[in-house]
């Protein structure tokens, strides 16, 4: 007899503002709804403010990727002001952003995702005891190391931008800080130390050796080649995940989007991974079909979101943020809008970057089995192999005795601009219109808006909703498989308040 149930799935470590509701038939997810439960409204807050206020306010959208918001805000204003950002300002904008990306990737991988490997659901997994030794909350060896090493890596941001998070050092025309030779040398030393830790502990090999892994066959060879590979965090991740079957579910729509990221200086030894003036190329991939990216094709739908309907999708320059939470409870179910590219939902983030830059390893892995939890998280763990060398080169290329970090720009009185980049979690865009010296219009589409999207006006599910279909939940009271799927996208619904609350005999922090 078929058993059909609908449940709200409690998911921790994905933010408190997310509800996932699933319909399960005989233990398999047959329908899913992703609901953002908090109204953000930052766009409304921005209207009427001074043109530069976005540089201070929008980094506060997120404490994890505040530099990416700053970058998007600054790029939008660069466009309006027709700024010619000096090469060394571009380099330092990039270096700070990469440092933030990598700390986020490492913390997500070892403090959020791998923590699930210690879930009692894996009690019979042959690597369970080792997983507990590495990832047990608060005291696992890799938990401790990750906290210490990422703390140090962020010193780079503090040296360049004065603080982390929520620095505002990027301005239209460049950067406002003036790092001297000593600051840059310290950045290089921090980076040198981090790279050594990453190679020793996460990869188990030099970056150069990993970059030779270009197919699933190469990956098998790499795993068998040395104990240091098998026992590294990456090697352990591969062994644990494959035994647990994480490569068998979490497929999604098989659409990928990248806005492109890390602007290329005009003169640099760093080679772009694609074409054009960015290091991480932009693009949209429908399966293996790669298309050039055009921001005009980005739109947001609100048919199933708690906003006033406008029919179909609207480009962010035309977008509206008019909350409407009454009378439509049967249909509308999320405060998140539904971003679409040329009418299609899309996955973004490290795997999307790899697919769009046509990385042979990830094209092979995702091509053979389709996108899945395993390959999505692995893309995040090895992303530093792509960006660390560029970071090193850009820091080395700066001669502080001869450089300028800022070029005077036009006063921003009128105009329209957009700032697109790739945050740690994926495609991030700010669309801004200035009129009479004030912000008239501001729209932000975050990476998690792409992923947490509810259905669009055509009824098409968002990426998480689609990726959950077909997932078998072995224990509905402990749905670790569903958590893997959502966490593999590195969700971030954005937080706000916190306080200390005592609950019965034990206190807990509310976040």
């Amino acid at each position: 007899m078929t058993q059909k149930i609908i449940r709200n799935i409690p998911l921790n470590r994905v933010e408190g503002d997310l509800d996932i509701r699933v319909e399960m038939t005989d233990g398999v997810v047959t329908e899913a709804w992703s609901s953002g439960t908090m109204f953000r409204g930052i766009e409304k807050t921005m209207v009427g403010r001074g043109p530069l206020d976005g540089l201070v306010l929008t980094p506060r959208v997120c404490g994890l990727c505040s530099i990416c918001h700053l970058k998007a805000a600054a790029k939008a204003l660069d466009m309006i002001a027709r700024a010619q950002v000096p090469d060394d300002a571009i380099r330092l904008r990039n270096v700070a952003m990469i440092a933030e990306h990598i700390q986020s990737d490492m913390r997500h991988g070892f403090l959020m995702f791998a923590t699930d490997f210690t879930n009692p659901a894996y009690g019979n997994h042959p690597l369970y005891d080792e997983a507990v030794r590495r990832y047990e909350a608060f005291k696992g060896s890799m938990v401790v190391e990750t906290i210490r090493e990422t703390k140090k890596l962020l010193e780079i941001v503090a040296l360049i931008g004065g603080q982390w998070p929520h620095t505002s050092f990027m301005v239209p025309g460049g950067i406002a800080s003036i790092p001297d030779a000593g600051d840059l040398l310290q950045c290089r030393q921090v980076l040198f130390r981090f790279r050594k830790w990453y190679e020793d502990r996460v990869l188990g090999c030099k970056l150069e050796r990993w970059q030779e892994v270009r197919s699933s066959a190469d990956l098998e060879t790499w795993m068998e080649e040395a104990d240091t590979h098998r026992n590294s965090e990456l090697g352990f991740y591969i062994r644990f995940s494959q035994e647990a079957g994480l490569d068998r579910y979490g497929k999604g729509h098989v659409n990928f989007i990248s806005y492109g990221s890390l602007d290329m200086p005009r003169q640099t030894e760093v080679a772009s991974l694609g074409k054009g003036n960015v290091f991480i190329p932009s693009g949209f991939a429908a399966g293996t079909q790669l298309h050039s990216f055009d921001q005009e094709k980005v739109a947001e739908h609100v048919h199933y979101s708690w906003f006033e309907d406008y029919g179909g999708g609207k480009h962010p320059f035309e977008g509206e943020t008019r909350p409407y939470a009454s009378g439509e409870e049967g249909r509308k179910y999320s405060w998140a809008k539904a971003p679409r590219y040329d009418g299609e939902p899309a996955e973004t983030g490290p795997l999307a970057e790899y697919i769009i830059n046509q990385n042979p390893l990830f094209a092979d892995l995702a091509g053979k089995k389709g996108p899945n939890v395993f390959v999505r998280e692995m893309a995040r763990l090895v992303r530093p192999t792509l960006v660390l060398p560029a970071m090193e080169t850009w820091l080395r290329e700066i001669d502080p005795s001869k450089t300028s970090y800022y070029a005077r720009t036009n006063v921003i009185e009128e105009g329209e601009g957009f700032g697109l980049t790739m945050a740690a979690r994926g495609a991030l865009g700010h669309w801004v219109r200035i009129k009479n010296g004030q912000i008239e219009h501001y729209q932000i589409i975050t990476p998690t808006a792409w992923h947490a999207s509810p259905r669009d006006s055509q009824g098409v599910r968002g990426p998480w909703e689609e990726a959950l279909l077909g997932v078998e939940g072995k224990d509905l009271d402990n749905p670790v498989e569903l958590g893997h799927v959502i966490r593999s996208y590195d969700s971030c619904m954005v937080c706000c308040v916190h306080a200390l609350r005592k609950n019965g005999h034990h206190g807990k922090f509310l976040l």
Partner: protein
Amino acid sequence: MTARIICVGNRFVDGDDIGPQVYDRLSLMALPPDVDIVDGGLLGLNLLRFAEGADRLVFVDSVFGFGREGEVLVLDAMEAADGMAASYGHSCGLAYLLRVLPEVCEGGMPQVLLVGVEGSATEPMISRAADLSIKLAEGEKGL
């Protein structure tokens, strides 16, 4: 002996703004020479940098359920955090920091206390919490 008073909270949220308000008060006061103050905001785990290198840490934060409305309490922060649910997440906060601090703190582990304020901030509570935090930072006991 160095001490740090780390005030945490969200100054835009009523009931969670006591830490920032105490920070504002402390910043106008003459502090003992070995006491630093930190506006900890919502930094959570990223306060680790400020926790290291001090002999004594005094956190100031809003609390619920530890005392009566309007009460200003002194808690052994490590003890208070020990029984708390705290997992790492993008919004992980003071509880997570306190739980993980003994494992990750580089240098000696400081003594850690928490000045907790129950309920919405009022002028007398802000003053009391500010005075208490200085006395604790200076090592006074039996408060």
